[in-house]
């Protein structure tokens, strides 16, 4: 492609794919730090293990495909996939769970479709959805956050390590696990929302603080990525606004049975999804208007699946569903070339 010769001032930005991916990995740090502070070492160990698996699988498949291993490894996309999987799995997820999710993400969701830039689905979310469907029990038990009064059982680094890799030996961890806020809210049954907030320990102010802070951490990381112009604001803002609107409408109609917008925005993986997952440049919509539709549809789908579906959180399913729709969205949101009509309108009017 011939590059346009534009006169100064020139804007310098992250040029190589590797730089972009590393910036994204860097931006997960605030969220990761808070996650580690509240839930112990589990996610850190998971991320290290998932990244190791991801990079090894990537290297293996690339060498089978007879491409240049170092060239593809230094775009760090496999590393990012590993980090995202490690962030989204529960902190005490056993080693084989992470192994299955990550290897499936890299080998099946990425390389069987042609590798970097060719995958129609977000690899990390394919891996996550796979283990969520296959191992629902392991995927829904979270540790109780450290900020909860009376919870002095956050396992130490060594305990966490032996809980994740039990064959290393050591004593079984007797940690205090509980459901996520969204899961608790989903299974509240006949209880009113206000009673639930008052009675459930996971929704008590001290525990809610943990979930809220982690979401705020991801929001901070996302803001940094926006500042670095890694992606444009359209997808995440559309996602968050759509989710706020739809959850706000139902909450205003019946605040006793529907969760507040705050619960939906901060209580689950919404922030992680909005800034780190829905913005994947390969599998999301690419036109500017298309990104608005794409983000908004994810926000609405997440709310629908959370409220009326079978799963408490739904970022993975919503993102995968919209990945299906991204080419379709792009087709109908082609930007108009100056001086021309949009192509499909032209065919419709029969010219």
């Amino acid at each position, binding site marked *: 492609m011939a590059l346009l010769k534009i006169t100064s001032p020139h804007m310098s930005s992250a040029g190589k794919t590797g730089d972009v991916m590393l910036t994204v990995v860097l931006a997960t740090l605030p969220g990761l730090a808070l996650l580690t502070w509240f839930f112990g070492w589990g996610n850190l160990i998971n991320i290290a293990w998932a990244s190791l698996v991801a990079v090894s699988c990537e290297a293996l498949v690339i060498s089978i495909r007879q491409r240049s291993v170092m060239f593809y490894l230094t775009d760090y996309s496999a590393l990012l996939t590993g980090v995202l999987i490690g962030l989204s799995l529960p902190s005490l997820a056993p080693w084989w769970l992470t192994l299955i999710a990550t290897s499936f993400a890299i080998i*099946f969701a990425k390389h069987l479709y042609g590798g970097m830039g060719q995958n129609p689905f977000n690899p990390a979310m394919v891996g996550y959805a*796979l283990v969520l*469907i*296959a*191992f629902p029990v392991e995927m829904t038990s979270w540790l109780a956050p450290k900020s909860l009064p009376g919870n002095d059982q956050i396992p130490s680094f060594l305990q966490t390590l032996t809980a994740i890799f039990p064959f290393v030996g050591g004593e079984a961890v007797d940690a205090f696990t509980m459901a996520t806020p969204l899961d608790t809210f989903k299974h509240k049954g006949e209880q009113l929302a206000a009673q639930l907030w008052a009675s459930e320990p996971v929704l008590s102010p001290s525990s809610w603080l943990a979930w809220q802070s982690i979401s705020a951490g991801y929001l901070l990381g996302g803001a940094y990525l926006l500042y670095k112009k890694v992606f444009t604001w359209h997808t995440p803002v559309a996602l968050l606004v759509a989710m706020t609107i739809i959850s706000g409408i139902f909450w205003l109609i019946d605040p006793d049975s529907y969760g507040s917008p705050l619960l939906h925005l901060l209580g689950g993986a919404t922030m992680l999804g909005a800034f780190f997952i829905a913005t994947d440049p390969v599998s999301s919509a690419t036109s500017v208007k298309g990104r608005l539709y794409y983000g908004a549809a994810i926000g609405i789908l997440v709310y629908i699946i959370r409220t009326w579906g079978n799963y408490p959180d739904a970022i993975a399913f919503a993102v995968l569903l919209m990945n299906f729709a991204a080419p379709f969205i792009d087709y109908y949101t082609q930007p108009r070339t100056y001086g021309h009509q949009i192509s499909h309108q032209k065919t419709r009017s029969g010219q």
Partner: protein
Amino acid sequence: MANKSYQEIITDGLWTNNPALVQLLGLCPLLAVTGSVVNALGLGLATTLVLIGSNLSVSMIRHYVPDTVRLPAFVMIIASFVTCIELVSQAFTYDLYLSLGIFIPLIVTNCAILGRAEAFARKNPLTESFIDGLMMGVGFTLVLLVLGAMREIIGQGTLFSDMDLLLGPIAAGWKVTLIDDYRGFLFAILPPGAFIGMGLLIALKSIIDNRIKTYQDAHRDRSSVTDRRVRVTGEIK
């Protein structure tokens, strides 16, 4: 049309034109019931019997049915055979009949059967049609079995469990537990596991076909190559 030799019909059904791996017909039952070997075998046998019956009947009436109404006639024939099979399985293997559920009546809609009636039996004599039906059925059943075994091993860690539902009390002890204390991999039992397993089988067939082709190319008599003129651009004087 030139009739195919029996050998061609057999290799077509089992490999080169396999209904499941190449024609990709009958995917609905293929993906839905291959959660275990016994289900796969039950449905494979039922499909094979229907295929043979429908191919034979269609071949017999091929000179009398006008082209314009052939499809309704074929569907009627297939539906009658499916009803027979359904009643037979209900009578003799009632538990298997229950576990296969709607997929036995749905054999009517299996395009592999109508496809063979339309593409083969309607144009060929009785013996050829019989062999074609048998071989297509066996080819389909083999794929079902491999897929069923794959999904049963990955999904439950066992092989040949519940075979007595189909084969009677002799098979009660056939269950092989490959992995002790296996906690199960639900994904393999669910439909996505079937799609992925099917994709892997098709890929495997392509690999084998490519290997065979390169082997044949390497060992072919080179005389046919040497007398071909090679055209070179440039530098011709």
